[in-house]
């Protein structure tokens, strides 16, 4: 007798019209609904076995915590499932092309993770005796050497914890240097296209920010800048390559002009990826520049951090750098934790900076070497220009190429389609892509800033271009709903950000459910 258990197996035998049913659970196959830990866990559950403690005499002085904290616990299998399920609701570089302009979402090599987890590097305390951390100091010193060599700068402050923190370090060094000369100045110039961190940082440093307009070709208006320069200008903050994805052609003239009035040139190094190994900022007249190790040197973005933002400094600024810093002796390394010169402006953070990120970044740099890093710049610029060349006929490129490692488009090509940059971006989600950076920089309307990075293959970039061309055609053909209702295929539909901001609910509370 024939065994027909388990039939049918071919799709032609299955009722194909079942995708319209609303599931009982709310889940859709592999897209599973997942509650909050407070809904699935409770105060009695725990996923950690901890020993019992014999009775002892407390030394808390009567300050015991008596009320319930309210934490919910999960056992290990429950916790694993909770976080694994949630992870699947995230887009990630490991899942696909992530063309966020200005963010440099490149592949994160796992070797770097492995190196950062060597017990001799991860399990060391920032205040254990210096004689027991010679390898750590050697590593920091080696990374500093790589950064100084790649930028052509004589000094580097390692402790800033992210790009914006690095900007603050750079501007404070500038202010300290000026004040040491008895030169109180009050203004920092920044182009209109600058990252928001630039003006925010300048304000923290007590400076007023004066915006500099852009030229029609997307660069700093040198003439306008020269007019704004004066004895009260402490510094100019310029991102180069800039946020329009372009190299500032007149960068030398910009540097010379600011130096001529006794000011300093702060370069925002967020886009260093485009020129690493090819151009040294030190050859462009830069006085200070932060380097986002989490961009150019591939330490993972981790859903928002952590980063690291070492700042390279010119000879003139180096004495004012923050503590601590590593000093290489003939036979051993030391770390200077207290200023003895009276010049350092202070301390950015407890301890010595983002060691875990230093390890990953150095592992990345050593893997690439001087030859590989130059290729990083070349391939990232090549991929971006290839995107620009392949899309400029149907999208509106904001500026003439060549671009650097990112290509900027605006929304002119969507005019009269009823589709906005936001809608277009959400439709990209339905196609399985993370959208590009949208509405930044502010200097063009409905900006779309595409940064493919060098770790995308030609096949990957071609697929992206094909998808973009398809969507542009659909938008122009009047298939508006495909865009305005998007995303249709993501774990959630478009979210109500207005409601979230009008009545902020920033934490779970018990009363909400009872």
């Amino acid at each position: 007798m024939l065994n027909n258990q388990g039939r049918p197996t071919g799709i032609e035998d299955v009722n194909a019209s079942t995708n319209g049913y609303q599931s009982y659970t709310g889940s859709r196959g592999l897209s599973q609904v997942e509650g909050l830990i407070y809904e699935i866990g409770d105060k009695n559950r725990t996923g950690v076995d901890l020993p019992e403690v014999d009775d002892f005499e407390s030394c808390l002085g009567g300050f015991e915590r008596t009320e319930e904290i309210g934490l919910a616990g999960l056992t290990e299998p429950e916790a694993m499932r909770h976080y694994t399920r949630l992870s699947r609701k995230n887009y990630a570089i490991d899942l696909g092309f992530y063309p966020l302009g200005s963010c440099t979402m490149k592949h994160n090599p796992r070797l770097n993770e492995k190196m950062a987890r060597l017990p001799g590097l991860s399990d060391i305390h920032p205040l254990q005796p210096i004689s027991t951390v010679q390898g750590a100091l050697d590593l920091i010193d080696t990374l500093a050497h790589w950064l100084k060599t790649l930028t052509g700068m004589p000094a580097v402050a390692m402790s800033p914890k992210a790009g914006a923190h690095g900007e603050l370090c750079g501007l404070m060094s500038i202010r300290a240097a000026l004040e040491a000369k008895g030169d109180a100045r009050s203004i920092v110039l920044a182009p209109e296209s600058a990252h928001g961190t630039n003006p925010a940082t300048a304000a923290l440093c007590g400076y007023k920010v004066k915006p500099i307009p852009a030229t029609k070709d997307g660069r700093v208006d040198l003439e306008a800048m020269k007019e704004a320069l004066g004895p009260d200008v402490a510094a100019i903050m310029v991102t180069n390559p800039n946020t329009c994805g372009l190299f500032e052609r007149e960068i030398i003239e910009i540097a010379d002009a600011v130096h001529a009035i006794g000011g300093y040139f702060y370069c925002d190094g967020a886009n260093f990826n485009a020129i690493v190994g090819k151009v040294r900022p030190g050859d462009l007249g830069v006085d200070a520049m932060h380097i986002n190790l989490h961009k150019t040197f591939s330490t993972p973005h981790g859903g928002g951090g952590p980063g690291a933002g070492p700042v390279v400094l010119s000879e003139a600024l180096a004495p004012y750098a923050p503590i601590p810093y590593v000093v290489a002796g003939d036979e051993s390394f030391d770390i200077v934790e207290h200023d003895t010169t009276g010049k350092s402006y202070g301390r950015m953070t407890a301890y010595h900076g983002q060691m875990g990120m230093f390890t990953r970044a150095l592992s990345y740099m050593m893997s690439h070497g001087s030859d590989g890093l130059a290729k990083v710049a070349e391939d990232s610029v090549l991929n971006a220009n290839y995107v620009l060349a392949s899309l400029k006929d149907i999208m509106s490129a904001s500026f003439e190429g060549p671009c650097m490692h990112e290509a900027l488009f605006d929304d002119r090509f969507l005019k009269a389609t009823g589709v906005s940059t936001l809608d277009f971006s959400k439709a990209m989600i339905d196609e399985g892509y993370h959208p590009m950076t949208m509405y930044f920089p502010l200097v063009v309307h409905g900006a779309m800033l595409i940064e493919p990075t060098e770790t995308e293959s030609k096949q990957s970039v071609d697929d992206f271009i094909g998808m973009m061309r398809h969507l542009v055609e659909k938008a122009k053909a009047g298939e508006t709903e495909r865009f305005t209702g998007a995303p249709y295929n993501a774990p959630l539909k478009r979210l109500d950000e207005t409601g979230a901001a009008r009545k902020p609910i920033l934490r779970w509370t018990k009363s909400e459910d009872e």
Partner: protein
Amino acid sequence: MRYLPLSTDDRAEMLGKIGVGDINDLFADVPPHALLKELVDLPLHMTEMEVEKNFNAFAAKNVAAGSVPFFVGAGAYKHHVPSSVDYQIQRGEYLTAYTPYQPEISQGTLQTLYEFQTQVAQITGMDVANASMYDGSTGCGEAALMARRVTKKKKILLSGNLHPHYIDVVKSATKYTDDVVITNDPTVNNTESLLDQVDAETSCVIVQNPDFFGNLNDYTEFAAALQEQKILLIIVTTEIVALGAIKSPGEMGADIVVGEGQSIGNGLNYGGPYVGLFATRQKYVRQMPGRLCGETKDADGTRGYVLTLSTREQHIRREKATSNICTNAGLCTLAFTIHMTLLGEKGFRQLAKINHAGAVKLRNKLQNVNGLTFLNKTFFNEFTVRLNKDAAEVVEALVEHDVIAGVPASRLYPDNDELKNDLIIAVTETTSEEDMEVLVAELQEVLNA
């Protein structure tokens, strides 16, 4: 090069499409003299094996905390992190995601942030917490600036028993604003009086609990007195595990709580990356720095999470933003929240109890050592002892015997002769009874040699 997918043929074909002959044509905007003709003077690319060899060499020159009896704390603590935490944070979906700017495809990160914010608010006893700062010290600087925005006053009073690095960070953060920072000398035996130092210009007072030397305080009355004068109380906790055992800053009446969250989920990592916890009262939420995640609904009415109240932040508010912070502690936040979920109420409290019990046990054992005086009346998992010799020299002598005995106060206060012989000793659940016995024996020998 294993990380670069483009082949020589690809490159040629792509240059053709672009319409240029050479890759350097794309760098035409670079001033010619600045475009390097040769590679920079650094080693060429390496295989995985070669890189590993280099890093093994670095690692071999360090003494890992887990390899010796280890009593170092002072703001960073060696705790045990469950294996599943490190597995989860290495999942590509978390590790290789950006800031959740597209909420429809970032619910994983967003929901964990929402859970994190809730946990931090609960532990600190406050209404709301943000999605993290870089670390406790920079959070402390941000808190001082926030107090200025809330009170519109500019005098910041710091306890002398605040972590010296935190003091330095507050000073730097306010160096070029016109805030005035009033500092105090450390008092190891906790005899400080702050209330008589405040006046009509004071915006905030920053204290640490447990303080830098391990002492515990109840700030309830102090908080009430400050509130009457519209002065904010900022309580810093560098050992967050303590809040599983001691009264929360919120219950004491703090207005802002800053914590170093490294103890939960995160390794020592030689000082970073760590995770700054930042919590406050509901009424001050619009003056908070950093990202906030909030609950909302999608177009179908399904619950979801988004980043919210973004008009406080630099990318929108530019020079008027509450902070310049953009990248934060991200993945360290995730490690914290996973570890805290594994602990739960029961585990967190038990962990705190074990830490305290261990410290009490070590204190009891050390009482038999000659040449050592206790300076704390109260403590959680860390206390300070005064030795009959220079503490830095004693620590160095014990390194020779493979014991890392603690942090000599002189490492943080090099110019304070009074503290020269003081040693700060921390105990956690990773400290075994054998470790304690070794420390006791070694100290007995060195102090009485």
